[in-house]
């Protein structure tokens, strides 16, 4: 276990390094306009541009620039090109919103997916099978921003059931306001997954129902409920939980960029969307690193959880 954690930590650092280099190169090797030009503004003179280049180090060799940038990321001094705000602080500001969205949606899709999957597995048959398949696939076939825009406009503005997007701080307007603002984003993001999860769970449950140990459990004289919960569900959930971890990591690590943008939640993802539109390298780099961090972290946690849930798995490699 200890060795496993160390190995994964080292792997994480390596992957993060690669991600940072790659992101940095994307914006520096691919020609996309000189940042100094942009920062200098419309009335700038060549002398001004040169001064900016000097101050920001754009005239240094690429690896120097990379090192300086990474140093600033680490020390929290990274400054945006576009409006000279502190990138790390901006990310910190966006974090609670991104977390609120990701955690809420992930819980929702997990709960709904499990409930629906279990229900359809128990009521297995041609008709429910087709229904769940189609529903699940409709869920993953919709562009999330499309669904979000429709929901926000028709349910939010037109029907007046929900606020017109935005985020409400718990500290300011209370929990209920916060929930009201989050319901639609949660539901929309979760729609992407509920169907898939219910389908995977349904397949797992049907497989598990045929396992010998379920037969054993029945032979023991356990109640059907106990058989379903302690044996069927407990074992069927293992792959779901790991899948959930990976998806949660992905959503946390930037997968919710569209949902955040369409509901104007101003989380980390939306910050990325805005920064990338301005070719503002520092926030793009930092958010990408942030996203990669969560993806790698959740991958590791998933492996640990997998071992915890299934004692047959050992964390040796």
């Amino acid at each position, binding site marked *: 276990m200890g060795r496993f954690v160390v190995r994964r930590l080292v792997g994480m650092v390596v992957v993060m390094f690669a991600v940072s280099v790659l992101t940095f190169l994307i914006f520096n090797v691919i020609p996309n306009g000189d940042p100094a030009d942009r920062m200098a503004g419309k*009335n700038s003179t*060549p002398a001004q541009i040169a001064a900016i280049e000097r101050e920001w180090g754009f005239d240094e060799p690429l690896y120097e620039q990379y090192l300086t940038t990474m140093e600033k990321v680490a020390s929290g001094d990274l400054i945006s090109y576009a409006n000279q705000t502190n990138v790390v602080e*901006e990310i910190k500001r966006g974090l609670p919103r991104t977390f609120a969205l990701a955690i809420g949606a992930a819980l929702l899709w997990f709960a709904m997916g499990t409930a629906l999957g279990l229900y359809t597995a128990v009521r297995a048959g041609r008709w429910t099978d087709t229904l769940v398949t189609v529903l699940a696939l409709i869920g993953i076939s919709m562009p999330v921003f499309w669904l979000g825009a429709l929901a926000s406009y028709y349910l939010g503005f037109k029907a007046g059931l929900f606020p*017109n*997007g935005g985020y409400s701080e718990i500290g300011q307007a209370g929990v209920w306001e916060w929930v009201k603002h989050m319901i639609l984003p949660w539901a929309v993001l979760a729609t992407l997954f509920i169907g898939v999860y219910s389908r995977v769970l349904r397949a797992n449950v049907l497989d598990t129902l045929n396992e010998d140990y379920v037969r054993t459990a029945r032979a023991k004289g356990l109640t059907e409920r106990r058989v379903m919960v302690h044996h069927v569900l407990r074992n069927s959930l293992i792959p779901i939980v790991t899948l959930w971890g990976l998806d949660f990591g992905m959503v946390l690590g930037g997968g919710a960029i569209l949902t955040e943008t369409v509901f104007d939640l101003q989380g980390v993802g939306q910050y990325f969307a805005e920064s990338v*539109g301005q070719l*503002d390298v520092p926030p793009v780099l930092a958010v990408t690193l942030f996203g990669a961090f969560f993806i790698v972290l959740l991958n590791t946690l998933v492996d640990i959880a997998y071992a915890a849930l299934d004692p047959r798995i050992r964390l040796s490699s």
Partner: protein
Amino acid sequence: MPGSLRGLICLSLASVAISGLTACGGDDGDADADAEAVSEATNGGRTGGTITTAYTSFPDYLDPALSYTQEGWQSMWTVYTPLLTYKHAEGAEGATVVPGLAEAMPDISHDGRVYKLRLREGLTYSDGTDVKASDFEHTIKRVLNLQSGGSSFYQSIEGAEKYIDDGRAGADISGIETSDETRDITITLTEPDERLPYILAMNFAAVVPGDTPFENQTKNPPPGVGPYKFDNVRINRGYDLVKVPAFDVPDQATGKLDTINVEVVKNRRRQTQDTIQNKIDYMHDPPAPDQLREVRARYTGTRYAEFVTNSTYYYFLNHDVAPFDNAEAREAVNIAIDKRSLARLFGGLLEPGCNFLPPGMKGYEKIEPCPWGDPTAAPDVAKARQLVESSGTAGQAVTVFGNDEPEPKALAEYLSDVLNDIGYKARPRIIEASVYPATIGNHKTRAQAGFANWFQDFPHPGNFMFLVDGDSIQPTNNQNFGNVNDPEINEILDAASRNADIEEVADDYARADRLTVEGAHVAAYGHRELTVFYSDRIDFENCTSWHPVYNLDLTQLCLK
């Protein structure tokens, strides 16, 4: 980034939005009613209360030395006052430069190089400290040292370039002499600059305390002399403008509201919806395009109004690259574009016109009849095709540049379609808005044609005409995108720029404007309209004051 989010960043990033005075001009039948209501606005309405306003984006900076966007300037003008400033008035009157912190207008030496001003007596900043004459030099130093977008305006001051080259923040600028005792300020220029009063009236020169650090102060904006002060700054989220009760400078407006809470709401549709539902009291940008119709229909004259700004929208046509090195080809474009269509692309928030100069500008003389056909009628496309044919440029490939904001993108696609229609092989090319000016302003791009617009930095025709001045062409960061280099225009502009009296040179600028249009140097098509949209708490009739430089005058806003 989705279109709706980008909102009006184009107005702010690409150029500074300052606005026009035709609200009272009444040459637009529809606007008459509003205009009357508005013109008697300024002094009524009750004081006190708190409102919430929505901006689509956080101002670039909350630091007068750096802010160079309309959002920034609008708030800045309530917090800071330069030595000279604009009158809190609507229309042409608002474009008048008047003494601000200075006792009077400057005393200008005979050769036009030395400006003498005196600070008013007993001025204090919002934190209670006294204003000193030397603070002014510090203010200008900050602008130069921080590489502000405005620093180029102040480089005509003697020693300014040396100061930048030195790179030492504390060094002296030889062209600014101040005396804290006599409150005298003397500014010496390297050569006469007829724009200096306007430049001194820009927010960059708004006086801040002499101990303000040489770095971006957005997080904690420096105190100023003005009816409001910044408070509760939440970067990228919002800030409050809180009334300074002690503010009392002769002839300067004091604020009516106690607190103006500025919130950043990135989604323009959300702003509109919230304003309709009275959750937001004033939205700074026009309503979302798809709600404009509803807002117009329901709230015009009670909560909503439109104003033409001092701006110009045009297609640049590159004189250095085929096919638009050919005058006939450029004429064909001017004939073929349908200004009615272009107005539709702005949701009607564009006043079609023939002139390059905006109607609210000194030197504007309506060109009538328009040599390229009536701006409000269908174009003569057949004639344009003929011209292309006779120019011998038919069939040539043209790349039409535009940026990725909704309107400029649609405009580029439109021109591309028109060019295809009259015999070219055109294709739009959409560039990120943030790099758009630098891209088309770089000679290496050889951009043939594309979207361009300009919002004034200050209300002076020279601030528009330099866009077609051959002398302003430069290889990078060029603003004369079409490389217009007409000797006659150059000569007129050169002469006019040496004369500080705007009344005397107005006719010259009118001539340059006419030459620009008749020479088909650009394809100008109109002037942008902006809007105010309120909740029903705001006293629309009495408290809407549309300023030609700063748009809505926040100091005049009040509750019913």
